[in-house]
């Protein structure tokens, strides 16, 4: 079921079209990774979704509500984690979360409980009376998240939430994203770190020049770009008959013989294959020494789609 839907959305700045007729659906309960180099239009897309910008044309709906017509209803359902640290240095962690909680309309006991919950969730409960100026980069990022989730939003938009932090904090944040998703929030996640998006996203959209140039899970994107999953087999000895038989398997689109009785198989379509291949090896008396599967990675997918590396911008 589509929870967020963009329909022919356009946004221009002067003569430059920042978002060019974007049509995109994001399902309820998924972690959607939005990738693109700087200037691709992903921030503009996110800002239009969060109500920070108005689109020039097209419609955006969240949970059935039109962003342009029911902005306040939508904003109650959204938690935005901006790329900048949107926290007040003069307030303590608890005061920061409480302030935004009040502005979300939370009051009294409910507010206190949610603030406690958000601080606990982000691992900041022990530092609740500390000011951000005394926090590490990772703690500030976690506070940035706490301020966006205390009202239990149905949709969480995270714009580069792990920029400039240590690996431990990054892992904490990624784990938090998974946990928020498990608790029922739909998540839109943008990052320059491909491995993060790869690790947590159920689907990925790749934007470039204001357009959505690819959409799907990793396998779908791989097929889209002609990239294949690879299976690497190492046997105790060679057998030309076995190689010929494997080559004929409908899922094997390519086969390369490498040194040391090693075969590299290109797997082009979905379907079972491993049982068949093991059967062929067994039939020809070959013992399997090593078996690895290599999936197409997003970095190379991105490179192939846009002609540049993601972090080059």
């Amino acid at each position, binding site marked *: 079921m589509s929870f967020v839907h963009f329909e022919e959305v356009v946004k221009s700045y002067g003569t430059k079209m920042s978002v060019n007729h974007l049509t995109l659906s994001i399902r309820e309960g998924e972690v959607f990774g939005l990738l693109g180099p700087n200037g691709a239009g992903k921030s503009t897309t996110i800002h239009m979704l969060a*109500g920070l910008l108005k689109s020039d044309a097209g419609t955006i709906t969240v949970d059935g509500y039109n962003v342009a017509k029911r902005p306040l209803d939508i904003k109650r359902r959204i938690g935005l984690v901006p790329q900048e640290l949107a926290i007040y240095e003069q307030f303590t962690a608890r005061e920061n979360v409480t302030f935004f909680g009040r502005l*979300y309309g939370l009051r009294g006991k409910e507010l206190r409980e949610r603030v406690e919950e958000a601080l606990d969730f982000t691992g900041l409960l022990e530092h609740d009376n500390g000011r951000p100026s005394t926090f590490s980069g990772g703690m500030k990022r976690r506070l940035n998240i706490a301020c966006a989730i205390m009202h239990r939003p149905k949709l969480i938009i995270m714009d580069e939430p792990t920029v400039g932090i240590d690996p431990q904090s990054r892992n904490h944040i990624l784990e938090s994203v998974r946990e928020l998703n498990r608790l029922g929030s739909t998540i839109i996640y943008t990052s320059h770190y491909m491995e993060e998006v790869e690790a947590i996203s159920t689907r990925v959209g790749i934007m470039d020049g204001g357009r959505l140039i690819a959409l799907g899970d990793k396998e779908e994107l791989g097929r889209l770009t002609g990239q294949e999953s690879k299976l690497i087999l190492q046997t105790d000895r060679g057998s030309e008959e076995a190689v010929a038989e494997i080559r004929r398997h409908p899922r094997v689109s390519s086969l390369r013989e490498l040194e040391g009785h090693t075969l590299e198989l290109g797997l082009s379509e979905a379907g079972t294959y491993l049982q068949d291949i093991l059967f062929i090896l067994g039939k020809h008396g070959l013992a399997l020494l090593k078996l690895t599967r290599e999936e197409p990675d997003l970095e190379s997918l991105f490179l192939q789609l846009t002609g540049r590396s993601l972090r080059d911008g």
Partner: protein
Amino acid sequence: MRTAIYSTLYELLRMTRMRSVLLMLFALPLLLIFLLGYGLDTTIRPVDVTVYIGDDGMLGERSREFFEADETGEHIQVKMVSSQDEVEKDIRAGASDYGIAVPADFTEQFMAGSGKIVTYPGKLMERNMAAETVLSKLTGQFETGYLSEAMGVPIPEREVPEEGYVQTGTIVANGNAEFGPVSSLQYYASAYLVMFLLFSGMAAAISMMEEKEYGTLSRLLSLPLTLSSFLLGKFIAYIIIAVIQSAVIVLFTRYVYGVDWGGNYGVILLTVLLTSLSAICLSVIIASIVRSRKAVESVFSMVAVIMTFLSGGMMAGLGPVIETAGRFTINHWANELLKTVMTGGVWSELQQPLLVLAAIAAGFILLMLTRIRKAVV
């Protein structure tokens, strides 16, 4: 409405945590008022004079009457002692500015043509001159009295200016001087109160620009609230700060520096509100043009200092051209109001500056409303 209230409360909390800003808004004006107010102070303060009259004769009696007269008390503060040694002691200890001793046989000696009053000048030349001027009036009376008696011709007393003849300080302080009808302390207390109200108004625009530059604006815009109510709350916070700042300045200068603010605190409050509102709106208008926090700080500070200068807030009596230019500033009309209140001005005298200041505030509000979106987004 709740958004505005929370915005106000949290902005006030935020301000209380910014010590440097508080210091600038509260301590700096008090320091400047003190330095300029006293530095250019021309009010006449009585000179402390210790007097010993040992002479029981006619001139001794006349001396006693002279030093005890109310008119003399306006210019010198007389302390009568019972010996010449005490006079010397007071001067040495700095307890008195000047000492006078009328010796025991002064009347007899004077009639014989050799009598002298012994004087003990203190460390401050200006104070000595003031005391000697008063003393010369007494000796003048002796001389004219003696001569008229000897010659049988009445000689008229010397003419004395209405406002007194003892004046100390660098600038004459009377109704026609640069400070107008108020003292230098009153003048600078008013001028710096207004200038720092402008600066506290600027803090509102800076806070607004910080929301933009530090990224909190993105989050605020994604919240289920109207930005106008949030900003309204922020501006209310700065008006509250301006009122507190003014109360501190008025009360402190009144009770510590002795500045007379008149009794009409309602008009003072109105002046503070209108000035603060004008300053907030002007700073937002500037923010909509220059669009960065540092630029707002620089441009607005320059505007505030220029307005203060043109309105005579830095130096009094700058001449007709600058005074005419000064009439186009917020400071001029706010100062006019405050000075009129200080001198006990009646409603008819308050009306014109009040209406002009209200019109300035209304104009700035309208202009600000058309520009605020550009300043924020």
